[in-house]
């Protein structure tokens, strides 16, 4: 019983973390058909920025609770600035090109941004433990948990609700569906596609950065720590169906829970299990659990 509760909580916590990161990826893919490897950079930059400023402000004697403001502000600032620059500076010139070339371009950019981190923040890890320390810990199911980690679940839920609302309950969300399918016709139907793209990309970027910024207090933020995250998010997004927000949610939950089960019960398969699920899902549902409709060809 204890183990079960622990597995579920561990799983949900990890799922939440995965969801926050991958929902941004899926939104970007869904709308712009870009499998964005620089998402890992948003994550890393978000984490570094948050960790850096939490450290700075804490040294200047600001209260620890201010850390939460920093996390949010860092995510928004990093996502907006990087997202805007990348969409305007690079991707805009690429929309006509092959999907794969776009993936590779973002891969190239990712490499560049990785080294830029080293130049800006140096090689030393950063610690931003203050927000986590502030919330202390509770005992659930016989083991101690940090409350901060549990708030991750709440944050993920909030992100999910906001995304769902934005897509299904606003005109903007409906317009996205049109833009997704046909950029040019959308333009002719009066949609400011340029703006939709920029905003969507920035939203995706902010979510990626939020994932990094929110996780920063629980880890040592070190160079290159986004590399594994991105491929896990790929798995989540693909399992759920690329471009689908409910898909990202389900995908995160599946991956998070399965991983928790593996670590607790069969640690040897931990790494393998995620991609095995991904392969199995793809084999039986080639387009993921929530696949989009396809146009009639003949």
């Amino acid at each position, binding site marked *: 019983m204890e183990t079960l509760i622990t597995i579920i909580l561990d799983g949900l916590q990890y799922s939440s973390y995965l969801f926050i990161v991958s929902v941004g990826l899926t939104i970007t893919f869904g709308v712009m058909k870009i499998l964005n490897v620089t998402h890992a950079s948003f994550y890393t930059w978000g984490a570094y920025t948050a960790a850096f400023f939490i450290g700075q402000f804490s040294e200047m004697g600001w209260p620890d609770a201010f850390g939460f403001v920093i996390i949010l502000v860092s995510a928004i600032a990093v996502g907006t600035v990087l997202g805007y620059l990348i969409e305007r500076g690079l991707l805009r010139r690429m929309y006509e090109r092959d999907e794969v070339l776009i993936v590779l371009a973002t891969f190239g950019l990712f490499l560049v941004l990785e080294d830029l981190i080293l130049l800006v923040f140096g090689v030393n890890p950063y610690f931003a433990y203050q927000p986590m320390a502030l919330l202390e810990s509770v005992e659930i199911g016989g083991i101690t948990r940090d409350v901060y980690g549990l708030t991750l679940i709440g944050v993920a839920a909030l992100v999910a609700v906001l995304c769902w609302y934005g897509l299904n309950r606003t005109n903007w969300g409906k317009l996205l569906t049109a833009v997704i399918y*046909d950029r*040019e016709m959308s333009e*002719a139907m009066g949609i400011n596609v340029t703006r939709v793209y920029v905003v969507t990309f920035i939203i995706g970027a902010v979510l990626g950065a939020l994932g990094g910024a929110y996780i920063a207090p629980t880890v040592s933020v070190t160079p290159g720590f986004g590399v594994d995250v991105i491929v896990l998010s790929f798995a989540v997004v693909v399992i759920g169906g690329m471009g689908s927000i409910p898909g990202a949610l389900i995908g995160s939950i599946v991956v998070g829970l399965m991983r928790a089960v593996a670590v607790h019960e069969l640690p040897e398969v931990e790494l393998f299990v995620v991609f095995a699920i991904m392969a199995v899902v793809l084999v039986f549902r080639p387009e993921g659990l929530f696949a989009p*409709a396809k146009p009639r060809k003949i």
Partner: protein
Amino acid sequence: MLTIENLDVDIESIPILRKIDLVLESGKMIGLIGRNGAGKTTLMRSIMGLLKAKAGTITFDQAELTNIAGHRRAHLGIGYMPEDRRLVPELSAEQNILIPVWSTGISDFQNRLNWIYRIIPECKAFQSRPATSLSGGQQKLVALGRALMVGERLLLLDELTEGIAPVLAHRMGEILTTLKSEGVSVFIAESNDVHVAGLLDKSYVIERGAISAQTQSHQVNTSEAST
């Protein structure tokens, strides 16, 4: 209403349209007739801002369209039906018709939607079906409905009757006549003008990217004009 002067358009630096001059008066219906590959679609797309003009001007109601972002045209009351329909497969037929409503924020869309259903009752029959499943001609009708939704002042219709059964093509002609009487200007591009020839106030014949003839009223004879 719509005046095009000296328009040059290139695609991938190949000149496609050359020195196009064209005038569409308010409440009139004009045709652009020409063989395959003459440049009809290119002209329509240039008006919609989907292609960049290399030289020349496109004036709509005193506004210089070449300086305005592509998406603003719908907000000005211009509706466009592309030759290849291009519906959004994930949305139902009705949602497809409503896309311009969401983007331009038309307020009395319900009336307009009812009116569209009244004049194209076929659309109502499959209003809630996904656009993916519709036949070629059915998609065409939805695309027309979508153009009608915003095109309160100007309609650009590319290959209106292509792939449409004769009964329906005839009825479309009637619909356009009604619209005209309500003050909407209509600009139709056709490679095969059997169904619309009788309705046009004026026809331009386009050949290899240039206007080669212009005919008032109903006496267009395309096969002669293009030899």
